[in-house]
């Protein structure tokens, strides 16, 4: 935690960084409440004079935008929102749960220092696009194309290396004597890990969950390649707001993006308090 005052040269740097991060969000939120005529007006309109919720209504009622004389898309975003929630939540749960088990295993019970973790990470050593085509073939053969179990499986596989590595670093930081003390005091190995290791890496568990969720939530390529009629996610839906008649429906896109940001912002606030590393401070000699 930062608890010394900022020095003078740090303030302008921070302001620039802040502007870089916040400006796109500001623009996104403004676009979401602009009527179609303002979407790509030139010169650009910074703050709409007549803010409207029509873009948000269009997400769930695609015909609504026609009142503004703009052609819509046929499909409501509802399915994509539900789909994203289902896929991201289940894949995140799986990746973090499996990652936790692997992390404890690698950190505590593996004698190879780096080869196994490296093999796990090798799943991320090439661009995802390289494995998309093989996946399409495998999924077609196994009837996993265009299904949620298929998407959840691939998301889990892709994020598991991250969760394993991140969680491993948290477990590594925790002296093994913590859980060993519990074992001598009467706990089995599994119970010692569940009641001592896991609570002590709670912060790491939350931040890993958050990161994996963000990766899944914003994933576009696999969802696009693997989906047809059954499967839908928010990033795929975002790409659908491009119509032949009216060009890109910027406002509607922005509205969906704003909705998509909400769970991440809430999640961020929720885990902020748990992000303190060095929870073990003071309990062991260093």
């Amino acid at each position, binding site marked *: 935690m930062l608890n010394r005052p900022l020095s003078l040269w740090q303030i302008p740097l921070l302001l620039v960084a802040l502007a870089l991060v916040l400006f796109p969000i500001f623009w996104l939120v403004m676009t979401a409440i602009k009527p179609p005529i303002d979407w790509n007006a030139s010169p650009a309109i910074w703050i709409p004079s007549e803010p409207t919720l029509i873009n948000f209504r269009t997400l769930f009622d695609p015909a609504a935008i026609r009142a503004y004389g703009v052609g819509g898309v046929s499909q409501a975003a509802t399915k994509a929102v539900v789909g994203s929630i289902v896929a991201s939540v289940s894949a995140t749960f799986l990746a973090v749960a499996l990652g936790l088990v692997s992390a404890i295993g690698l950190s505590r019970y593996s*004698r190879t220092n780096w080869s196994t973790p490296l093999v796990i990470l090798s799943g991320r050593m090439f661009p995802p696009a390289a494995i998309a085509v093989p996946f399409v073939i495998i999924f077609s053969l196994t009837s996993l194309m265009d299904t949620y179990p298929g998407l959840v499986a691939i998301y889990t596989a892709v994020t598991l290396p991250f969760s394993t590595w991140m969680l491993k670093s948290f477990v590594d930081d925790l*002296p093994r*004597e*913590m859980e*060993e*003390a*519990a*074992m*001598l*005091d*009467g*706990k*089995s*190995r599994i119970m010692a890990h569940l009641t*001592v290791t896991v*609570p*002590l890496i709670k912060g790491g568990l939350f931040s890993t969950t958050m990161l994996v969720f963000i990766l899944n939530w914003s994933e576009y390529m696999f969802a696009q390649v693997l989906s047809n009629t059954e499967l839908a996610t928010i990033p795929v839906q975002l790409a659908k707001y491009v119509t032949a008649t009216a060009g890109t429906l910027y406002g509607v896109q922005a509205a969906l993006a704003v909705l998509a940001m909400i769970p991440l912002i809430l999640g961020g606030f929720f885990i902020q308090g748990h992000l303190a590393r060095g*929870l*073990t*401070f*003071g*309990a*062991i*000699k*260093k």
Partner: protein
Amino acid sequence: MTVFEGLEAQELTKRYGPKKALEEASFVAEKAGFTVLLGPTGAGKTTTLRLLSGLEPQTKGRIYLDGREVSGLAPKDRDLAMIFDNLALYPNKNGFENLASPLVQRKRPLSEIRQKVYSLAEKLNLTLVLDRLPKTMSGGEKQRLALGRALVREPRFFLLDEPLSSVDAPLRFKLRSELKRLQKQEARSFLMATPDFAEALAVGDKIITLNKGRVTQIATPKDLYARPVDLTTATFVGSPPINLFKGRFEGGALSFLGLRCPCPGPLAKILMASPRDFTVGLRPENAALILPPNEPRPEDIVGAAPLVDIEPLGRTLAVTLKLNGERLTTLASAAVLSRLTLGQEIKFKINEPESVLAFNSAGRNFLA
């Protein structure tokens, strides 16, 4: 047949791949006794304790506790308590919860837990930290809390892995006598690992020395000091370290530093049979300076050499003389400091010639 009461290790061996951490260590630690595992870092002390506790499986060997084989049992089924060198207090639990955890995990009734924790907290002077987290406690408090967490239960044996290494010297001194008192008062069975020979000599009923994964000697503190089994042990135990000289056996006497020193009978017998060169060990306290106006008595074994180093140790001085390329360190009272100058030729004598040690070319004590 009587069953041995205590902890017994038989040819305990641990290898990590090709690396030998412990080789065929066999020893016993008596029930209600204070046994110390003494050795430098990397000697295998922690490995020994981890094997005994079941936290790691041994490559080979057996472990018995009060006559029952526990070699393959899980840590929780061995009924041992361990204090780790980093203490491993639960950082998210306060003093009370830390102390109570072994009882809670064994599902003791709440009334019993309360009663035991409070009475132990009183005994260990921990009452004031019961509602505080470890991070707010002082070094001594954490140390006592870790001790308390082990003591709260009544396990068959206590394993202590350098338990005092994290506290400052004055506190360590106080805690080690407290540790000894606790052990004796309640007839607890302790096996403690330490790299500090002074600590081992101070608290141990019996000392097991380890070096490079092997048990080198098992002895009482007195015997360990008086009759170290080899050069490594002799050097490791004692401060300033024992003086070592090239020695010869001539005409029934030990000859070293140009002095002739009567040879104790048993040693003479051995040396007579193998009159090769060997190493003589002389503890600093077995030599003394003779400063004017004192004169040596005729029966004294006396030499003289220039003074090359003085190291003040508080009430005493470690004084080093150099003779024929060999160095002799001895102790003197701090009061004589003003009478010493570097380079000055000083007379010295050998005290208790019968306590002189002799080691063969392989470093083993002839009399071990």
